């Protein structure tokens, strides 16, 4: 098993290795592997080394934070003051924000060392990271396959040990699905648990930042550092989690009520289905009570998601007009012409598709039939989740109906691609927390992910169940060979 954050923290404090040395090891690995894997799209080695030097100073103090001196990565849609942030879109080419995202501000205060910004689907729209304007990242487990998306680069960097941990964002599964495809852990926190300030918006009522890591414990450590209310994000909540979640991971599942909804298993690849069922068995053997429950509205989650996310996106992406920042077309005859050409040239097909969809569902005459109806169904889905969580402590489900797609998979139409989000989007609609943990491999050796879904602001139980599974199931998948070798 790979060295976790707490072990690295001990080694840093024992002077077995310095933050600068650790950072250099990761820089070397990135220089060696990134040209192939394309996990990073912007490298920030200079600032990383400076941050590492500072971290080494901080580490001389007894109260240095756990994440001090640990090299990490941020998804390219998280704003970093003065450092290129593009959402992997041509339209934000060269954009350097004037502000830090709250999560990055917090991590910096912890002495985090940023190695670079990671690859992603353009504006986080996609399930393979192939819509990136920098080309797709490759799945380190098998480079003929995609990483998943949209936080594909964040998942690949952690999988290939090109970062100890990374942050991604999850609007409809964008942390959990690539975590599942790359065999790492991905946590989507409760909506409002982590500030969205500085996260470039896709679907504002669904977006949430979370960690991708090699272990549940690491995920808990990073979540501890980034969670909390923010006066710059009105939708954030200053929830009192009591104590550090990383320190309360050890909990037996005996007597715990684990819900299984058949709706999550419809149309799932049989190999995945059987692995998740094995895991459920394991929980049962260890004393958990398995509750078979129903979530009938789940079948509506996908259309609801695509209506709401696209509606919000069509409005959120209106600002990219070539006037203030980013890409601007070279030749134009008027301001209208400039805006039209800039957007036509700057956005990729998937982004355009979703902007058009969103514009359509908000248009007068269609609003009631689509957007308004979707909001009503969203409330119904929330009610169903609320009812289920009266009977269960967590739900267990597959993270995705399939393992990683081959690169440039031409078999899928956009709608088929959207279907691959079926297990993850209900979680965003309900705003509840969920984690994806590795749960074996398919016949091709590609990782499978299991999703554990909890009550709003009950990340503690979600992490405890995931940690329990990780401990008893062992690291069932082989670690990636290579990377920083730390």
């Amino acid at each position, binding site marked *: 098993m790979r060295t976790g954050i707490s072990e690295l923290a001990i080694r840093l404090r024992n002077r077995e290795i310095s933050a600068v040395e650790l950072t250099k090891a990761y820089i070397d690995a990135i220089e060696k592997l990134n040209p192939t894997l394309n996990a990073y799209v912007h490298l920030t080695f200079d600032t990383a080394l400076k941050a590492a030097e500072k971290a080494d100073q901080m580490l001389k103090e007894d109260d240095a934070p756990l994440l001090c001196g640990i090299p990490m990565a941020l998804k390219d*849609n*998280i*704003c970093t003051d003065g450092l290129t*942030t593009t*959402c992997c879109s041509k339209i*934000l080419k060269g*954009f350097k*924000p*004037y*502000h830090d*995202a709250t999560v990055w501000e917090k991590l910096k205060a912890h002495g985090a060392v940023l190695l670079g910004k990671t690859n992603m689907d353009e504006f986080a729209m996609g399930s393979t990271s192939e819509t990136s304007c920098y080309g797709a990242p490759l799945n380190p487990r098998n480079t003929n396959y995609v990483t998943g998306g949209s936080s594909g680069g964040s998942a690949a960097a952690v999988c290939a040990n090109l970062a100890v941990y990374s942050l991604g964002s999850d609007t409809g599964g964008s942390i959990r699905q690539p975590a599942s495809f790359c065999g790492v852990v991905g946590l989507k926190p409760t909506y409002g648990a982590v500030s*969205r*300030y*500085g*996260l*470039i*918006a896709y*679907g*504002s*009522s669904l977006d949430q930042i979370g960690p991708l890591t090699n272990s549940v414990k690491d995920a808990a450590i990073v979540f501890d550092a980034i969670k909390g209310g923010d*006066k*710059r*994000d*009105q*939708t954030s909540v200053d929830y009192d989690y009591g104590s550090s979640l990383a320190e309360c991971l050890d909990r037996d599942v005996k007597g715990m009520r684990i819900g299984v909804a058949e709706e999550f298993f419809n149309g799932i690849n049989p190999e995945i289905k059987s692995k998740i069922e094995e895991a459920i068995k394991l929980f049962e053997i260890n004393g958990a009570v398995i509750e078979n429950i129903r979530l009938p509205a789940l079948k509506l989650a996908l259309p609801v998601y695509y209506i709401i996310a696209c*509606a*919000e996106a*069509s*409005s959120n992406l*209106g*600002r990219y*007009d070539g*006037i*203030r*920042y980013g890409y601007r077309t070279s030749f134009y005859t008027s*301001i209208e012409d400039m*805006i039209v050409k800039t957007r036509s040239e700057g956005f990729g097909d998937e982004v355009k598709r979703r902007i058009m969809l969103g*514009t359509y569902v*908000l*248009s*007068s005459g269609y*609003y009631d039939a689509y*957007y308004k109806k979707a909001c009503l169904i969203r409330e119904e889905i929330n009610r169903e989740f609320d009812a289920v969580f009266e009977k269960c402590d967590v739900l267990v489900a597959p993270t995705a109906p399939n393992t990683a797609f081959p690169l440039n998979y031409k078999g899928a139409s956009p709608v088929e691609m959207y279907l691959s989000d079926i297990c993850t989007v209900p979680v965003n609609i309900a705003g509840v927390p969920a984690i994806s943990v590795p749960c074996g491999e398919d016949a091709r050796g590609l990782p499978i992910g299991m999703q554990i879904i909890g009550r709003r602001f009950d990340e503690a139980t979600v992490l405890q169940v995931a940690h329990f599974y990780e401990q008893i199931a062992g690291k069932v998948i082989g670690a990636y060979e290579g990377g920083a070798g730390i």
Partner: protein
Amino acid sequence: MNYEIVCGIETHIELATKTKIFCGCTTEFGGEPNTHCCPVCTGQPGSLPILNQKVVEYAIKAGLALNCKINTKSHMDRKNYVYPDLPKAYQISQYDEPLCEKGYIELDSGKRIGITRIHIEEDAGKLIHENGYTYIDYNRSGVPLIEIVSEPDISSAEEAKEYAEKLQLIMRYIGISDCKMQEGSMRCDVNLSLRKPGDPRFGVRTEIKNINSLSFIQKAVMAEAERQADILDAGGTIVQQTMRYDEGTNSTTPMRDKENSDDYRYFPDPDILRFSIDDEKVEEIRTSLPELPFDKLKRYVNVLGLPEATAKQISRYRKVAEFFEGALAEGASVKNTANLIVGTIFSNMDTEEEKELFAVRISAAQFAALVKLADEKKINIGFAQSTLQKMLESGKPVEEFIKPEDLVGISNEELESLCKEAVDANPKAVADVRSGKDKAINMLFGYIMKKTGGKADIRKAEVLLRKLIGQ
């Protein structure tokens, strides 16, 4: 004109909060372009709005002052349209849940003009066209606005002007905006259509945008009504369009609409949570409201017994009314206080703005001290006026200008003997008055004033003098 005017007015008012509606930037007018802005009000990727609670409070103040019902549950919507001065490509506004609804403004005639709604929203930036280029200044972007929409209850140009004037007065009074039309902190759009008297149906309306003075509102309504009447008289039809009023030619002309479509795709802004306002909060705001100018006017006339013209002049400006009421509270008389304000203090103030600001160098108490001397007839009104002027110029209290010996009035006997003295000492003047050169009496007045240091009651002296001269 054989038509009836049907007119409604939409008014945008910039709120005088210190900071913008969704960020901490200053709302100060002017400033070098793009110096009063930040990631939030320039719509930088990743930035998020935080609703300024003062804006909500100010809008509720406006609603209460305009007799509106306050919606204690409300939310913000996004109004999507593309224009370079709108950095997010949507304006955060309110669509189907405005903060205030169903109010009215009462005109002097007693007619009520309904207020449909008041909602809060953000202002856009400003385009500056120079040397063939267009520049954008985002200083104004995110400045809080309220939009006040009236019912189409206005049926003449005079009513339109009066409505806007009253609205401006009330907003200034409750201190939520300076409502300077020339600086754009109050902007009016007038909707207007015509119909045959008695016809219950509305005609096709046009909208006259961005009228920037009260008198232009009246003129624009007249010009547009005439334009529409001419078309209708000639058997034509009115086209629904946006007009511009040109003060030079006193006419309205169609203007190109900046939005290419009317579909704003409103939807609730997911970045700002639905909010609710406690009933107690509304009551707290209600009790914090000052007495409004029209209520003051009524009280000044009915209770204090002031003539309406004087009462109007004083109640019109909040600071003047406060100064007036402050002096009364010190025990000064209504009549002398009012007359000295209108007669002497106002003569130092040429513009509406000066009266609005009412920057006087003496306190209401200092003013009252002077008025009371006149009330007690220790000094005459003329002397009070000249002393007040000196006080206003120097900012010094009344004791600086009136010595105790000045306060001893001239007794009737003294005055009589002084008058005799004056007649004896100025035989030529007396003869002149007798022969009809009435102005010559001033010579006698001058003599008496000089002898008494200006204290003598000149009207009394005149009566005595004329008796002595035999007129």
